[in-house]
């Protein structure tokens, strides 16, 4: 019998292939040269050379979020690994499955402050779901297989594998993945408590003012979970709102959809949350952007929480019923139970609730007036949506006002088409993320809705975009300000705009041209639609510099420290001073 010996680096690559990896985002360096050597001879994995390691992780996140697969990253030791940390933290906060391979100095040099040495497993411990330092080449294959399971099972997250250079060079025997590994901590669908499901189904039917609030867990659970959630909403004829992370899991066109909730959510969504008598949370985590002031959060409601992560339950909001499990499995059981009970005529009419909600809707909290020739940023997003809604469009964003406007005014009819940094709020996320999305969906229209300040944070990736001929459209809402910082300074700090103006911006059209891509600029509302048409129709990448109204604020808004029923709808509405506690909040 011949034993298949190979180098550690070759074994790593083979293990990636065995785990279904087709694309890896990375940047070479001294400590990963053997891995790059193994990649050189491999034609099963496509390597995408980014221009910064943070971007490699964000690209892998975009890839993972738009496909449901595990994203894969390869970086070198020391600065390569430390640069990846922001991306890993972002993936942890938003529960995105990522495998990050990092090079490390050879084992005998670990701890000697060798060149490009960093305690990578130490640094990344709190920002990964799990990490490994491989010190024994015989463990290499098992660790990689196990890492893929950890990254994708349960609540997904990033896993880092630190690979010393001598391990990459040592001879190892390749081991295949064993599939029936039992994990005693894994939640099985058979563990579902049908009693609780039955009670919740009854509550849903019998409550007078129910609301369903869905989050990123529904998207993470796969497209089927989104279908089931929509089905549940339709059967119950119940209002539904979604978090920033959950957008798309119920189509925006569904008549029961109230829009996004939370700090910049719609009036009707937040008021319905506040006045409901039953709240069903599906795969969301009562994040502080969503709840507002906790002691005034949905005060007269029974709360039900479905989450795959037990630690999310009762973390910040105590609930009456908790169901720990995968959204699609719990939703399936719940839909079946509701259908069964539906015939028993126990359903309470919700007409009063809907007429109340329709009154809130009539406030038209997302309304704005497009006057004069200046482009309102809201209008820019609205027009972008109108022009692209019938195409296969994927949206990524950076972080700030443009992100909120995108969430408010762009409609998402399908899950996995909206990639934004929710938990960590990472400026510079959108451009590299769009690289990952476009690699995964070469034929689709991928748009990075950006702000000029966020764009500057990772604009080196223009080079990646050009190298791989990715036809990404970069739609910059350019107001020359770090808009959200400016808005908070206006509302909370007496309009003292400390360091929030971006001076010395580049000429984005010339910048585009220097990379040999198309640059467009528009500053008049009359030319907006034509510019969007032009952008969409150009085959290659485009930077569209959309000069928008400079001092527009993002509304509606729950001011910091306030409750859902304390929203402000416009600047004129902001007559109350923020409380001292509120000022301390982020």
């Amino acid at each position: 019998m011949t034993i298949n010996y190979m180098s550690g680096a070759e074994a790593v690559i083979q293990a990636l292939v065995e785990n279904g990896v087709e694309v890896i985002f990375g940047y070479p360096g001294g400590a990963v040269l053997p891995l790059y050597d193994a990649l050189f001879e491999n034609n099963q994995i496509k390597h995408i050379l980014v221009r910064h390691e943070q971007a490699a992780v964000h690209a892998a996140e975009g890839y993972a979020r738009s496909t449901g697969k595990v994203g894969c990253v390869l970086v070198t030791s020391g600065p390569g690994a430390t640069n990846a940390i922001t991306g890993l933290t972002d993936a942890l906060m938003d529960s995105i499955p990522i495998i990050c391979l990092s090079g490390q100095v050879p084992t005998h040099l670990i701890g000697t402050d060798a060149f490009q040495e960093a305690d990578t497993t130490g640094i990344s411990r709190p920002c990964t779901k799990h990490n490994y330092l491989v010190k024994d080449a015989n463990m290499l294959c098992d660790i990689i297989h196990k890492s893929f399971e950890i990254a994708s099972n349960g609540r997904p997250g990033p896993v880092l594998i630190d690979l010393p250079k001598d391990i990459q060079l040592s001879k190892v025997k390749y081991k295949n993945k064993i599939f029936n590994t039992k994990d005693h901590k894994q939640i099985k669908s058979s563990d579902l408590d049908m009693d609780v499901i039955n009670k919740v189904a009854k509550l849903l039917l019998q409550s007078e003012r129910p609301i369903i609030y869905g989050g990123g867990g529904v998207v993470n659970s796969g497209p089927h979970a989104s279908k089931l959630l929509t089905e549940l909403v339709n059967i119950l004829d119940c209002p539904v709102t979604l978090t920033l992370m959950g957008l798309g899991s119920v189509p925006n066109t569904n008549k029961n959809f109230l829009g996004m909730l939370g700090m910049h959510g719609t009036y009707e969504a937040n008021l319905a949350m506040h006045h409901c008598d039953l709240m069903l949370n599906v795969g969301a985590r009562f994040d502080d952007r969503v709840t507002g002031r906790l002691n005034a959060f949905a005060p007269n409601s029974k709360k039900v929480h479905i989450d795959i992560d037990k630690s999310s339950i009762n973390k910040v909001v105590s609930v009456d019923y908790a169901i720990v499990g995968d959204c699609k499995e719990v939703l399936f059981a719940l839909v079946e139970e509701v259908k069964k009970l539906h015939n028993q005529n126990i359903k309470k009419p919700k007409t009063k609730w809907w007429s109340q909600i329709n009154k809130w809707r009539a406030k038209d909290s997302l309304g704005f007036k497009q006057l004069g020739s200046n482009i309102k940023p809201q209008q820019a997003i609205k027009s972008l949506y109108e022009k692209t809604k019938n195409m296969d469009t994927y949206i990524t964003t950076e972080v700030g006002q443009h992100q909120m406007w995108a969430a408010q005014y762009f409609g998402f009819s399908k899950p996995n088409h909206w990639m934004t940094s929710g938990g960590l709020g990472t400026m510079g996320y959108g451009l590299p993320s769009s690289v990952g999305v476009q690699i995964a969906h070469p034929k689709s229209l991928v748009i990075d809705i950006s702000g000029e300040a966020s764009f500057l944070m990772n604009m080196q990736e223009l080079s990646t975009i050009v190298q791989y001929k990715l036809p990404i459209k970069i739609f910059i809402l350019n107001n020359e300000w770090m808009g959200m910082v400016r808005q908070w300074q206006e509302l909370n700090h007496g309009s003292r705009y400390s360091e929030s103006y971006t001076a010395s911006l580049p000429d984005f059209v010339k910048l585009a041209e220097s990379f040999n891509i198309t640059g467009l600029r528009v500053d008049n509302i009359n030319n907006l639609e034509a510019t969007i048409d032009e952008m969409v129709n150009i085959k290659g990448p485009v930077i569209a510099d959309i000069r928008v109204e400079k001092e527009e604020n993002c509304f509606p808004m729950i001011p910091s420290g306030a409750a859902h029923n304390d929203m402000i709808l416009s600047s004129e509405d902001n007559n109350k001073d923020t409380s001292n506690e509120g000022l301390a909040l982020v």
Partner: protein
Amino acid sequence: MSVYQKNEVKEAETSRTLSLVVDNQPGTLARVIGLFSGRGYNIESLTVTEIDNIKNLSRISLVTRGTSMTIEQIKSQLLRIVPVHIVRDLTLEGPFIKSELALVKLVVNGANRVEALRVAETFRARTLDVTLSSFVFELTGKPSKLDAFIELMRSLGDTEISRTGVSAISRGYKTETKLLDQI
């Protein structure tokens, strides 16, 4: 913890003893401690040693303080750590034994030497080292017993204290064997 104030139900904090079975690997302890420091939980006492050298498992005995909501959080968060296999709340499960070992060095001369030995005998401490001007005593038992002994020793002379922290186990015939078999 959210940046917003928590619900204003003020519930008393209580002391809880947790017993964990974890993989005996580099980094596992760092993960457990990092969880406590990163999320602002308390650790009052912590001991770790290998308990199974075939399966490579260690036990962490941990005493923490918090409201029941915080303790539930701590337990769920601990279970998220990949190499943490079992998290038991001994305080909640029922009667259990808490024991600790202390080494106490006492520098003492003259008549107090006899007093020191008398106290040690009363507490059933063992004398591990003697010089003409000092003793080293070893004492095991409940933390409160150790506290009382150490307080008496301090009144007799200059002391140096080394304590192991609490090790704990449930009373009765039930064992973890079934849980351990699943690992």
